[in-house]
């Protein structure tokens, strides 16, 4: 009897949190932790725009004023997230890959707080969700433009870290460029930082000195564009954000991450009680990846071609990775017409055939 009562009480207690979520919440406090400064003009800036859009969308029902910028990936991020959870945040958006361990550690301690980890893949606990965008779809568009616009046939790519997200981008850009310009080659420079204007500028300079005249970047600051602006004929693309101040050239187009719809959707779900753990990976079709204005510095036929690629990806008729494709070492990857599944994409750790250089390991 007694035992049964205990069990029943335990069951009731366990059901309690779930029940309270099913009912929704009157007010949600959403908090954000950023790897760079909100003024980086790229990655963190876009996340902060998403935060502001979230605040505007729900007014008094959502408190989205809490954020912390420039938090290093490591022990400090774990402390910051713990303090955020203690301060009453209901949902914490951690916007850098390197927060992965910290997010999962803190999530274990605060089962009633929701954690959303951008670009990560580990969801060790029921309250951890991950979200990502198919940046490689945007790379297929800018890669097409790069292939058509390069005069030296040398395209440069400033990578941040040799993780799958970057490798997807490099491969997608290279394949798209190769399709429209069989002579195109790609040089990759690893900056080993998400945000360091000095290092990014160095990387851009090194590429330009090698004769590269189109630069794609996977880092967050506008420094590579500022560097490109110094050399006539060199063009680049806005990364993560529009980077409109470098229009019409060297910034000839951009890949924009639009996080606002996701933030509004997730917090909305928390408000009305429909929130569930998830792993979201939307692209051009979902509106998370946008192609910024293609400027008049781009020839009309290049612009048309780029828009075709974008629209085909949005419509689902074109996948940036469509077989037949081989890996760099010459082994077969995808058969004729085949496309990779998400698990394979998310773990991509090899270059496709034709790219020179090695992935550091």
């Amino acid at each position, binding site marked *: 009897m007694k035992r049964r009562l205990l069990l029943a009480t335990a069951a009731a207690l366990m059901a309690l949190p779930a029940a309270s979520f099913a009912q929704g919440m009157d007010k949600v406090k959403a*908090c954000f932790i950023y790897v760079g*400064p909100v003024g980086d003009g790229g990655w963190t800036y876009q996340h902060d725009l998403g935060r502001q859009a979230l605040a505007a969308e729900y007014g008094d029902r959502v408190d989205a*004023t*809490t*954020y*912390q*910028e*420039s938090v*290093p*990936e*490591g*022990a*400090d991020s774990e*402390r*910051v997230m*713990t*303090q*955020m959870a*203690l*301060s*009453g945040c209901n949902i914490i958006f951690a916007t850098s*890959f*390197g927060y992965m*361990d910290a997010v999962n550690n803190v999530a274990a301690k605060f089962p009633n707080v929701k954690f959303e980890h951008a670009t990560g893949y580990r969801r060790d606990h029921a309250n951890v969700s991950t979200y990502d965008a198919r940046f490689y779809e945007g790379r297929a568009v800018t890669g097409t433009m790069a292939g058509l616009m390069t005069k030296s046939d040398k395209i440069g790519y400033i990578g941040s*870290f*040799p*993780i*799958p997200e970057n*490798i997807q981008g490099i491969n997608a850009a290279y394949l798209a460029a190769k399709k429209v310009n069989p002579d195109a080659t790609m040089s990759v420079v690893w900056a*080993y*930082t998400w945000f360091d204007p000095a290092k990014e500028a160095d990387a851009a300079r090194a590429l330009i000195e090698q004769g590269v005249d189109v630069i794609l970047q996977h880092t967050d600051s506008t420094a590579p564009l500022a560097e490109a602006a110094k050399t006539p004929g060199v063009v680049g693309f806005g990364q993560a954000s529009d980077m409109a101040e470098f229009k019409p050239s060297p910034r000839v187009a951009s890949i924009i991450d639009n996080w606002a719809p996701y933030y509004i959707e997730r917090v909305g779900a928390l408000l009305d009680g429909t929130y569930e753990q998830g792993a979201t990976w939307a692209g051009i079709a979902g509106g998370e990846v946008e192609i910024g204005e293609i400027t008049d510095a781009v020839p009309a036929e290049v612009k048309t071609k780029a828009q075709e690629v974008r629209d085909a990806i949005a419509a689902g008729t074109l996948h940036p990775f469509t077989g037949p494709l081989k890996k760099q070492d010459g082994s077969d990857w995808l058969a004729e017409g085949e496309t990779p599944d998400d698990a394979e994409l998310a*773990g991509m*750790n090899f270059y496709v055939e034709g790219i020179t250089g090695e*992935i*550091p*390991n």
Partner: protein
Amino acid sequence: MMRLEKRATPSRAWSVATPVLAVLLTMIAGGILFAMLGKDPVAAIRTIFWDPLFNPQFAAYSRPQLLVKAGPLILIAIGLSLGFRAGVWNIGAEGQYVVGALTGAAAGLALYPMESRLIFPLMVIAGALGGLLWAMIPAILRTVFRTNEILVSLLLVYVAQALLSSMALGALRNPQGGGFPGSRNLSQWASSANPELIAGTGMHWGVVAAFIAVIFAYILLQRHMLGFSIRLTGQAPRAARFAGVSPRRLVILCFGISGALAGLAGLFEVTGPAGQISLDFAQGYGFTAIIVAFLGRLNPIGILLAGLLMALTYIGGELAQFMLGVPAAAIQAFQGMLLFFLLAVDILTNYRIRWAREAS
């Protein structure tokens, strides 16, 4: 007209009062800074100094975190203070901290995935040795070639940081890390982990080592011949030489002790709170420890308190950032003010202010 008059001996009362005065002045100037940024200055100061300690929402978590943050600061500052007292300027503790972490982590990772109780002590020794040897470079260059130890030790910090990057990307990188730089997680490998010794206190081996260092330094300075030599050399170098103190030996000793302690701090950090060798590992503890050493008046007990105060401005500063939206740069400026005011009011220890009319 204000005039400064040199005191015959430094004022004892002022040497205790100046750190307190510096903190008060920092609060006032910081409050003005926060007000100019449109933040409530009282709330900001309260968030930085009061909330981490007494706000029921945070205190249970942030009090132990104070120890975690203060541990390496105190450990490094104790070592530095011995040299600073003797006029031996080791400005490169940050580099010794990094190298200690690297050698310690490397010694452990070489044995991965073996499980043994001996691995952690081995890493501790390797960490201390790494820091010590890195500190020997400026020490030997000074004693043999009379190079300036301030410059050499400082510049070696940048060499150590380059070494850190190359290790995080190369030899020590986690083979299972999916291409991301950084070593295996040492705090998750039982043999190398430096966990909380008592749950919920933040007390790990590094904090224990810091407390032991405080006690040893106190005894050394008060009761031991070496402590006497150090104090004498700092106050009267010529007298010290007549008393038979070898300046060379003292330089080597001071660098050796401070290097080994900084190396230990690095090792305890990389096996505990940081968990791994990563590109972000060097977070400036070695430089902040210089502030801590002076804020604590180069006195072991003072350093203990100064380390805790400094940790408080970090933890409270973070709270102020996300609770009140104070920019990160303003918090750094606030911490900088602390050293500035400390050095500025320090003059009262050695000089007294005289108000005098123009002599006629």
